[in-house]
């Protein structure tokens, strides 16, 4: 028994095995207990929801790898959604310059957060909280909270569950997510840049002594996180329309996806593959709960209890007496 547990533990350290098992088990349970759960339309809409959640959690994943925490995600999501709707819908910009402007603004503000946190050694929690308020608040103040524009129509097709990509019966956003996931995996594990992230997260001082420019790592990572969130905002503007509370669910759900996936808040453990599984597990759970007729209140409670159960499998700390 303990030999089996040791083997599982060994595999688990290399790959998110238990998360994968949980994902499959949940799917089998859903398919058995809810009619239509395994139908292709239902799978396709789950994939779209998971890809939006997963893309929103990409930034949080890399920020947590370097040992930070990003609370500006909802702010940048709202900013992205409002800006694309207003610029394209009300001010009649074409998509490309509007999108480019959004990326530049998000990157600049995110980079500022990262640089400030590193330079002045301030907890990222508070800087990103303020920066997120600046981003979403700035857009609201600019529009006077009157959101009149609508996002370009092709964005709705990008995120439509019945959309197709080059003839494949998969929504384009899911394909984008898959490409992003592969790219993130390659960058994190196969490039020097990825190594620098893990080195910075594991021990910033040692990383500095190994001539890693940790200031640049922090700046780039927070900029990347802000850009990811803004892109999700642009996608969401097509998916559900811009709204000032649009980003709120993605903060705690995204954090949950990252944590359930197995990336730890202490830094340097986990990667984006884990988060992808986390986002899929969460979306499956929500769908199953809705399918069984639980209302929002029940969902929240069951959600909380289930995360405890899921994380009990692999995410607990060592005993204090074992760490000395």
């Amino acid at each position, binding site marked *: 028994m303990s030999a089996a547990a040791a083997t599982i533990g060994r595999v688990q350290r290399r790959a998110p095995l238990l998360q994968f098992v949980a994902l499959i088990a949940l799917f089998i349970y859903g398919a058995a207990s809810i009619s239509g759960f395994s139908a292709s339309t239902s799978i396709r809409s789950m994939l779209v929801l998971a890809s939006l959640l997963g893309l929103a959690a990409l930034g949080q994943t890399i920020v947590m790898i*370097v*040992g*930070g925490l990003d*609370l500006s995600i909802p*702010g940048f999501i709202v900013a992205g959604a409002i800006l694309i709707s207003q610029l394209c819908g009300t001010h009649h910009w074409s998509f490309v310059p509007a999108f480019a402007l959004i990326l530049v603004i998000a990157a600049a503000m995110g980079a500022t957060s990262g640089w*400030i*946190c*590193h*330079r*002045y*050694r*301030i*907890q990222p929690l*508070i*800087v990103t*909280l*303020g*920066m997120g*308020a*600046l*981003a*979403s*608040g700035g857009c*609201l*103040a600019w529009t*006077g909270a009157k959101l009149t524009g609508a996002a370009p129509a092709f964005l709705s097709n990008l995120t439509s569950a019945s959309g197709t990509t080059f003839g494949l019966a998969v929504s384009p956003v899911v394909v984008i997510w898959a490409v992003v996931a592969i790219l993130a995996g390659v960058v994190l594990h196969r490039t020097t840049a990825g190594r620098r992230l893990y080195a*910075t997260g594991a021990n*910033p*001082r040692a990383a500095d002594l190994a001539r890693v420019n*940790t*200031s640049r790592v922090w700046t780039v990572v927070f900029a990347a996180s802000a850009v990811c969130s803004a892109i999700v905002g642009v996608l969401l503007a097509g998916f559900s329309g811009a709204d000032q509370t649009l980003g*709120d669910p993605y903060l*705690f759900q995204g*954090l*949950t996806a990252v*944590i359930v996936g197995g990336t*730890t*808040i*202490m*830094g340097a453990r986990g990667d984006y593959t884990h988060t992808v599984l986390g986002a899929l597990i969460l979306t499956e759970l929500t769908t199953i709960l809705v399918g069984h007729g639980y209302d*929002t*209140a*029940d969902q*929240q*409670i*069951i*959600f*909380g*209890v289930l*995360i*405890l159960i899921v*994380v009990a499998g692999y*995410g*607990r*700390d*060592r005993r*204090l*007496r074992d*760490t*000395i």
Partner: protein
Amino acid sequence: MRELLRSRPFGFALLLSLALLAANVIAEPSFGKPDNWPQELASFAPLAIVAMASTPSILSGGGGIDLSVGPLVIFCNVLLIHKFFPHGLESGWAAVPLILLIGAAVGAINGVLVTKLRYQPVIATLCTFFILIGLNLKFGASPRPAPAGNWTTHLGDKVWFFPGALITILVPALVWLVLSRTAYHRQLYAVGGNQSTAFSAGVDVTATRIVAYALGGLFAAIGGIALTALVQSSQAASSAQYTLIALAGVALGGTVLGGGRGGLLGSALGAFAIYLMQTLLSAVNVPPTWNSVVYGGMLVAGVVVGAWLMTQRPALRRAAA
């Protein structure tokens, strides 16, 4: 100046609060009138108490943080309005001990999850956060006003001549003051500073942490009472909003999120600065759409200026962890 700030981590929040207080009085002279103090204190109290409630768990270190204090405040508010008042528990003498006990119990559950069951604090309290929000939505699905003339109205106004809200703010502060005379206080800072060292020195790390989370829960329950006194209705929909603002107050107040440094007074001052920021914005007629821009800007500028004042030499090349 810088020496002072270094030795007193809450100094920055204090200076900021004083400056904002002066700005408030200049912008709106009636702000300083003693007649208005009970109302002003009442609207400040929930904010201050939530910030104080977040502090002990953070001080206890090990990545300790309690995300569930915000929903717990609302949970106590919803319990009071939907369970206690309609079911005959109208006397404050019976309701207060019960609600404090419930708050401390929820906090202790968090503590057990973190210590005995070895969950990361963020995950454990995120789960309590979800569960409490769910319960709030279940119990308080339809917002309801509190019955007229119930005992909490005094806390929102005056008890004899004394602003009632000051009592709710002072209770956690007094509990903390008493604790600071005990060995527990030193054990908490020892555990927060370095858990391995504290463990090796024979401190019961588990018990110290559980008590820290229970204290946070207790303070959150007091916050629930203060909130009920202020709004006189149930607020299930606003379950999520207090946590982040409380953490901002804690960080502004100089408590290090890594644990072991800071204190309750700093958190209350940090919350005070945030509250004064909000009142100042409405006093100078900034359109409400600009609120979060100014709020975010001051938060970022505030911590940068604070950090700049506190660092003498160029920042050590070490990430803010």
